[in-house]
């Protein structure tokens, strides 16, 4: 293993980190919000929309990320062109985030749904009986109890998201993985081991960070469980 080579490519790889982090953070937040909405619609069984959401989540969960990227980046413009709107001015990052949010939201909604259902009905009633609105009930009482159940799995989803940004290299956005591919290609694959060791370290570091965030939230929300 060539340590010097590792030292050389380390900064190059690190340079891609801001883009990766930016996409992860924005996607995680938007994806979570989307998931909440989708979960709410499906649990409320709003006719038609609820069935559409079923289709959406099943499609997004079952098909490869490559297809989502292609659908959003190449498919959406065709769709919009058909109704006379050109959306090709939208940036690649935005397209990418859109694709990832759609994907992430579907998965997270299937984490939130069972976690939500695990909160006993008596807790809903307790909140309702003191006169809380539906919204207040969920924010103050139910959601805090959903989180300790969902957080470990949300941690999985977050780390998956970190790794899924590599899909964006398909349409030329260079994240850590993309940069790694570039280095491997430029060195004709001779230094694959070194590149992998380096990105393993970077990814590991990032996911430890994400884990700490999750652990912190878990500690905060799970106090009552003892």
């Amino acid at each position, binding site marked *: 293993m060539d340590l010097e080579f590792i030292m050389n490519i380390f900064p190059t790889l690190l340079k891609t980190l801001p883009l990766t982090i930016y996409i992860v953070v924005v996607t995680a937040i938007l994806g979570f919000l989307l998931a909440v909405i989708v979960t709410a619609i499906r649990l409320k069984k709003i006719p038609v929309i609820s069935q559409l959401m079923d289709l959406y989540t099943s499609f997004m969960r079952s098909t490869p990320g490559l297809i989502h990227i292609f659908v959003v980046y190449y498919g959406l413009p065709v769709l919009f062109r058909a109704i006379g709107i050109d959306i*090709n001015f939208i940036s690649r990052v935005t397209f990418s985030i859109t694709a990832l949010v759609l994907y992430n939201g579907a998965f997270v909604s299937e984490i939130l749904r069972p976690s939500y259902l695990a909160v006993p009905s008596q807790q809903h009633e307790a909140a309702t009986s003191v006169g809380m609105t539906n919204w207040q009930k969920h924010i103050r009482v139910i959601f805090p109890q959903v989180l300790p159940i969902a957080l470990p799995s949300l941690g999985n989803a977050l780390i998956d998201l970190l790794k899924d940004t590599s899909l964006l*290299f398909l*349409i*030329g956005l260079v994240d850590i993985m993309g940069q790694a591919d570039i280095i491997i*290609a*430029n060195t*004709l694959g001779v230094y694959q081991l070194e590149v992998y060791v380096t990105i393993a370290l970077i990814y590991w570091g990032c996911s430890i960070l994400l884990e700490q965030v999750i652990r912190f939230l878990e500690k905060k929300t799970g106090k009552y469980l003892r």
Partner: protein
Amino acid sequence: GNGEDMADESSSNGDATTVTVAVENASNPLSFTNENGELDGYEVELINLLDEAIDSYEFNIESVDAEAAQVGVDTGKYAFIGGGLFKNSEREEMYLFPEEHTGVSIIRIYTRADDDSIQTLDDLVGKTVHPVTPNGGIFNLLTDYNEAHPDAQIDIQLGESGNFAQRFQALNDGVSDAIVMPSNLGAEEIITELNLNVAPVEEPVQVNPTYLMLAQDQDDLKTELDKAINELRENGELSALSEKWYGEDMFQYEITE
């Protein structure tokens, strides 16, 4: 280019139509990102030369995955792809190709240097050929061979072939007996770098012309490209490009197809 994120840039030239074109994003030396983070390579320079030569069009290069490029040109996002692509009947049905080719790809068989049992494609029957990637021309080439020779089948292994270094290392170690691949992707460099007991078979399997591949509705652009490519060919700029990226003028080889 690679640094920006706008799919379409407003044109710098008043009447010119701006179109987005795609190249592969990690395909050294055709198109790749160099140490400075800029898009570079044979196809990239070629497209830039064409851009200069054609007044009525502006090219905006996007570097994406090979498959993404295909899908992009299918859906009309890209006007054409520059990826050292071969022409075949299936493709001709779906896309437009310029009259003139803009590159040459020599397909060779690589074997261990001391193994002279393999000289032509026919000799590959019964040998272990290194797995081929699904999206490459080699897969098509070998499939065509098998179709043409129903009673002498080459065993085409499907699977990710690994990067080039791994492929040659595997050949060197005896995992496989032969690699079929274009010679212009840095094979020589790897063999020397890794000090491998591997050499190409003297006679090329094929010398293929490679083309830019246009979306079907780009007739006007095709006309312009035909003109410009001809110019570059005449004034020797294509040969110069080839010298720069491949160390030799590939256009001197006689096309076998």
